[in-house]
């Protein structure tokens, strides 16, 4: 396989002035819309899709791809600054990014995520160039049994991330899974828990859930405390630069994140969100100071961000080579190809090498543009926090409402935001963590669907699922993870009891 020739074809296409300009346009628009609360990458790509109808197919795709990762990047910015995750994959970034922001370290957080995204994206593009044809063969070995096993692993890994109060963390994962059961059950077609609303037959809209739980509850809490003081007092260039210690702690997480992202992105039907959850869970486990996570640990943002961008790039592999989109956003991108009369699929690489490799090259150029564009702008974004909150939050509320409304031209989802906002506020008053709800909500239905499918295919023989090499290994890993978690909780508790006993002796 002539990788070099592909690179030449690719960059030749991508560096044409038209494509460069539209790449820049896409990246800028994507970043801007991704930053608006309530608009995730899915909404951003859907909104801008009609604009590209009149462009050349390659140019259109270059621009939309720019919008996609620009929006993912912009979403991480609003996650860090305002605790508003625009996409499922940004939810994890909130966990440590927002605390950093509250500590006046938003600049550092944005700077590190920009760098981490770029490295993750670059490695993802390299994987796309070198491995695309190989990965396709390998990914087909994943059937329902394997997907069930890997989703379950992701769910358990993510669920055991919160250890302060394991029962409360688990309860939120299960609550998320329960919310995930709302809507039509794919196997039977029965609409479950739809409360008489036709809108709920497709399930609860993720954006409405995330905006309500995180965004609205955050706004209520903030204005209940105090409104007029801006978050931070001064923004200097210095506050952007990570300390030497932070750089040292970030290196490995960035590369691990990219590896995890590349792996999950390449699997059709998983998407970037599970990669970010697992990236975060692994860093927390490997850390010698896991208690810092959730309070502004830099590893907790760079790993998921790197994983996210690597996964976004790698997700183009199954979309372009198999015609199988890994996420809803990818499905819209594929629709864009179809509208331009290009059928993604195994033949695309051979029949339209300029489109395929040109896109791959433009992904990397887009990532580079993101870097160049955003490093100087970080100061500006952070300065946004100097806007008095009393003026900022009404705008945020309006943006959330409009963004949610436009996803499917329906005010129903606006009322869902209202409901989940109240729910999020009550849950936070009761000292629940909210991120596990989103994790359960996203992974729960995937676990259920694939489990049902696997059990049907093997006619109820669970031994068959355990006997298959990939799913068997993954299930064994899941079991080991459960045992390990249980053991470390017990050990921590024993230590605590011993400490208390010592005090009692005094």
């Amino acid at each position, binding site marked *: 396989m002539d990788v070099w020739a592909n690179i030449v074809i690719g960059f030749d296409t991508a560096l044409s002035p038209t494509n460069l300009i539209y790449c820049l346009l896409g990246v800028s628009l994507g970043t801007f819309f991704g930053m608006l609360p309530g608009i995730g990458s899915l909404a951003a790509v859907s909104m801008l899709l009609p604009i590209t109808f009149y462009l050349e197919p390659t140019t259109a795709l270059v621009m939309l791809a720019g919008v996609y990762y620009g929006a993912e990047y912009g979403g991480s910015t609003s996650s860090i600054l305002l605790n508003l995750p625009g996409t499922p994959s940004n939810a994890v970034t909130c966990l440590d990014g927002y605390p950093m922001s509250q500590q006046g370290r938003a600049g550092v957080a944005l700077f590190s995520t920009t760098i981490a995204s770029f490295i993750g994206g670059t490695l993802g593009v390299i994987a796309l160039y070198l491995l695309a044809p190989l990965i396709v063969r390998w990914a087909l070995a994943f059937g329902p049994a394997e997907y069930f096993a890997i989703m379950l692993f992701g769910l358990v890994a993510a669920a055991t991330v919160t250890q302060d109060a394991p029962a409360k963390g688990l*309860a939120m994962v299960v609550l998320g899974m329960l919310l995930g059961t709302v809507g039509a059950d794919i196997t039977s077609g029965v609409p479950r828990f739809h409360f008489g609303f036709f809108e709920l037959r497709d399930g609860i809209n993720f954006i409405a859930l995330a905006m309500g739980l995180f965004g609205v509850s955050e706004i209520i809490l903030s204005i209940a405390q105090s*409104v007029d003081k801006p978050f931070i007092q001064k923004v200097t260039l210095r506050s952007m630069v990570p300390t030497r210690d932070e750089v040292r702690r970030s290196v490995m997480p960035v590369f691990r994140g990219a590896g995890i992202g590349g792996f999950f992105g390449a699997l059709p039907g998983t998407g970037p969100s599970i990669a970010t959850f697992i990236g975060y869970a692994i860093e927390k486990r490997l850390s010698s100071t896991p208690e810092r996570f959730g309070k502004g640990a830099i590893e907790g943002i760079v790993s998921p961000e790197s994983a996210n961008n690597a996964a976004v790039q790698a997700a183009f592999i199954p979309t372009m080579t198999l015609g199988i989109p890994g996420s809803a956003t990818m499905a819209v991108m594929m629709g864009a190809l179809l509208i331009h009369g290009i059928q993604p699929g195994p033949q695309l690489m051979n029949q339209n090498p300029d489109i395929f490799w040109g896109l791959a090259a433009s992904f990397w150029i887009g990532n580079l543009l993101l870097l160049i564009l955003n490093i100087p702008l970080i100061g500006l974004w952070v300065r946004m926090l100097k806007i008095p909150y009393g003026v900022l939050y009404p705008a945020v509320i309006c943006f959330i409402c409009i963004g949610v409304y436009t996803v499917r031209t329906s005010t129903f989802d606006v009322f869902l935001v209202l409901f989940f906002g109240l729910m999020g506020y009550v849950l936070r008053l*009761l000292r629940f963590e909210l991120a596990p709800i989103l994790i359960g909500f996203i992974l729960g239905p995937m676990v259920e669907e694939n489990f049902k499918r696997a059990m049907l295919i093997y006619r109820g023989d669970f031994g068959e699922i355990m006997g298959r090499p990939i799913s068997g290994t993954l299930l064994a890993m899941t079991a080991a993870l459960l045992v390990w978690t249980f053991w470390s909780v017990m050990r921590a508790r024993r230590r605590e009891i011993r400490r208390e006993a010592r005090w009692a002796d005094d």
Partner: protein
Amino acid sequence: MRKVDRVDLLAGLLVLATGVYFAVGALEYRMGTITRMGPGFVPFWLGVIAALLGAVIAATALGRAGRLPEFAWRASGSVLGAILAFGVLLPLFGLLTAAFAASAISMTGNPAAGKRLILLTSAAITLICWTVFIATLGLPIPVWEMPF
């Protein structure tokens, strides 16, 4: 009086109730067999697990003290009221009215905001919304409607 952490007690009971609600609700759907799981199977067992976890959380609340935090009526009322207003007004009067109302209502949650500030800010936000979503993106949102 015995010591009770009211936060965790209430938290546990809430999760317990949610679990029971879903488990009982799931009984309306077919359970199926292990090979052919019906639509009720997964929600039923998830509901049971949630109920158990709720019971555990509530049980651990006994024996230690804890007070409920205060519910911020004004803040939550203004924010949720703003969203409600937006959802109701948008299809009737269009974006301009809905955005202005949502912004103004949400600002009543801020005790420091005077009438002038509320009006000016809401007008500015309405203008920004129009510029971004209508003028720039041309989204299919009703801008200005008169239902009567």
